[in-house]
């Protein structure tokens, strides 16, 4: 390994230990690592956005003589300039226009996507014959159809959760909690693999205690 490679491994190891030291308590070592992490990443993203948006998506497109949509990036450019009007008190109100554009366009664009993926597909997948197939199939179909129905009851806000309706809502929250439990275990295991990766780096690449 060359000098810079060894330097890189040491730096990464010390920064890793610095961040992990937060588990003990807040300390100067953690503060230094935090400042380095935040500062470098903020600078990195500023440069990335500049080249990705201002240069590639705007400058290259508008300066391309053969570009068929060379006027479209100007819309984004003007909206971006309007955002900067916040710096001037008298015309600062203009910065609300791009915000309104982004929020309105987002809501409109995603409405159908959400409606299809979260409603239509879910309903279609829940319409199942509940007493068909093996015992396992029956349980699965009952859980899918019944669980979706009771989940919907839980998220119904126009009626108080009382009586039979309240019972169904309680089943719905039980189904949600069971799902969360399974998801919790699954995600913790994936986090464990991330931790093992860091330990592998510390004890392998840095300390050379494991190969």
């Amino acid at each position, binding site marked *: 390994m060359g000098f810079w490679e060894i330097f890189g491994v040491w730096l990464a190891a010390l920064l890793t230990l610095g*961040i992990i030291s937060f588990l003990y308590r807040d300390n100067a070592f953690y503060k230094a690592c935090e400042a380095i992490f935040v500062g470098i990443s903020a600078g990195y993203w500023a440069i990335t956005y500049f080249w990705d948006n201002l240069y590639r998506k705007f400058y290259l497109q508008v300066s391309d003589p053969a570009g068929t949509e060379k006027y479209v990036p100007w819309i984004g450019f003007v909206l971006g300039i309007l955002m900067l009007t916040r710096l001037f008190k008298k015309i600062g109100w203009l910065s609300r226009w791009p*915000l309104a554009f982004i929020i309105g366009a987002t809501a409109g664009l995603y409405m*159908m996507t959400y*409606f299809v993926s979260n409603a239509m597909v879910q309903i279609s997948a829940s319409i199942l014959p509940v007493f*068909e197939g093996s015992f396992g199939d029956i349980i699965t179909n009952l859980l899918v159809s019944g669980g979706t129905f009771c989940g919907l009851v839980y998220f119904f806000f*126009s009626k108080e959760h009382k009586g039979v309706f309240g019972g169904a809502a309680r089943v719905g929250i039980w189904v949600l909690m069971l799902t969360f439990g399974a*998801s919790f275990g699954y995600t913790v295991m994936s986090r464990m693999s991330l931790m093992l990766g860091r330990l592998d780096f510390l004890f392998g690449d840095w300390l050379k205690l494991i190969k």
Partner: protein
Amino acid sequence: MRSRRPPIAAFVPSLFILNLIPFIFLTAVAQSDLGTGESTAMVSPEPPTGVIALDHVYDCGEMIDISWTLSAADTAGGPVTGYEIFRAEADSFVSVSVLPLGTNTYSDEKIIAGTPYRYRVAALYTGGAVLSEITSPVSAGTEIINWNLLNLFVIGLFVCGAVIYYITHAKRGKKLFIRKIAGLEAIDEAIGRATEMGRPILFVPGINDMDDVQTIAGITILGKVAQVVAAYDIKINMPVSRSLVMTTARETIKEAYIGAGRPDAYNDDMVRYVTDEQFGYVAAVDGVMVREKPATCFYLGAFFAESLILAETGNSIGAIQIAGTAQPAQLPFFVAACDYTLIGEELFAASAYLSNEPKQLGSLKGQDVGKFVAMAAIIIGVIAATLAEFGAGSFFVELNDIMHKLFTVEN
């Protein structure tokens, strides 16, 4: 003297052996071909038949679909190795794609809308290619209405109609009932605790930008929180990871302070940008938590792997924590580590519940109509599917089909 000619029967074995020689030779060649993959002698396989080229439906003239019946020789170990698609704008055909064995459809996207094209498909084999018949000219056109999405349009129209109806209803001053949502009831309690303790409130709007509906929902709740914060003169601290979220949050808090009659108390530093980097942001927020020790932490928006890190740190400093997200993988962590959690739809319902505005309340009631339709559809569909399975009659089979078609979206 009569010559002694052997009887005919004596020739039979010899003729049989002679006839076998070419057969043995051809078999050996064939076996040699299979082993080496090299061609020696080969008979042309049958060409693909029934080639049809049609304009792709419900697009903007971007595609032509070609389909054909596989060559009869397209079998395992057969001579066909694949298919080649040829397209002609005028007389000469050019190759547009080569496809693997067993493929009988292709969508040509390298076309110009309105230009007529003819196609032919070649079955490729080691010795060459056999061409199909040429199709009739076809050109790609634009269809303004996608009739495949008619069901989506009808259901969407129904739900939107319900939303408009309830908004009008609420605007006329009619009371709309919305049940209590536990997490939201706790907001006032949590802010009150911060006031009593004289400690700040931390508001984390997630790590996604303003193009995520969860961030928008989080910012809407921020408006309500900021009103109370302004009224009680509590410090609010909001580190953000996106510049647009920073601008929107500043606008929201500023408006709340103006609404509370205290515009002078507003300060831009209440909301500050940290970094776009996920874990850099988390490291900074954790630092803020342990140093400023906020009495209340709100996590409302889109969260990913940082959810548990934030919630555990908040827990370690003894803060009341209210979280809300629609990220299914992160909800378990918030449920485990926070005092109150707004689960999925509750996050979106929260803004309506808190604002008590006719528009938002009407919108929430309209969505409930949509949920009622979904619940009814599941009950009817499940009964129909189950009875159809038990052979209760063709009515239930048809009803089952209708229910599936009604909620299946084809593009």
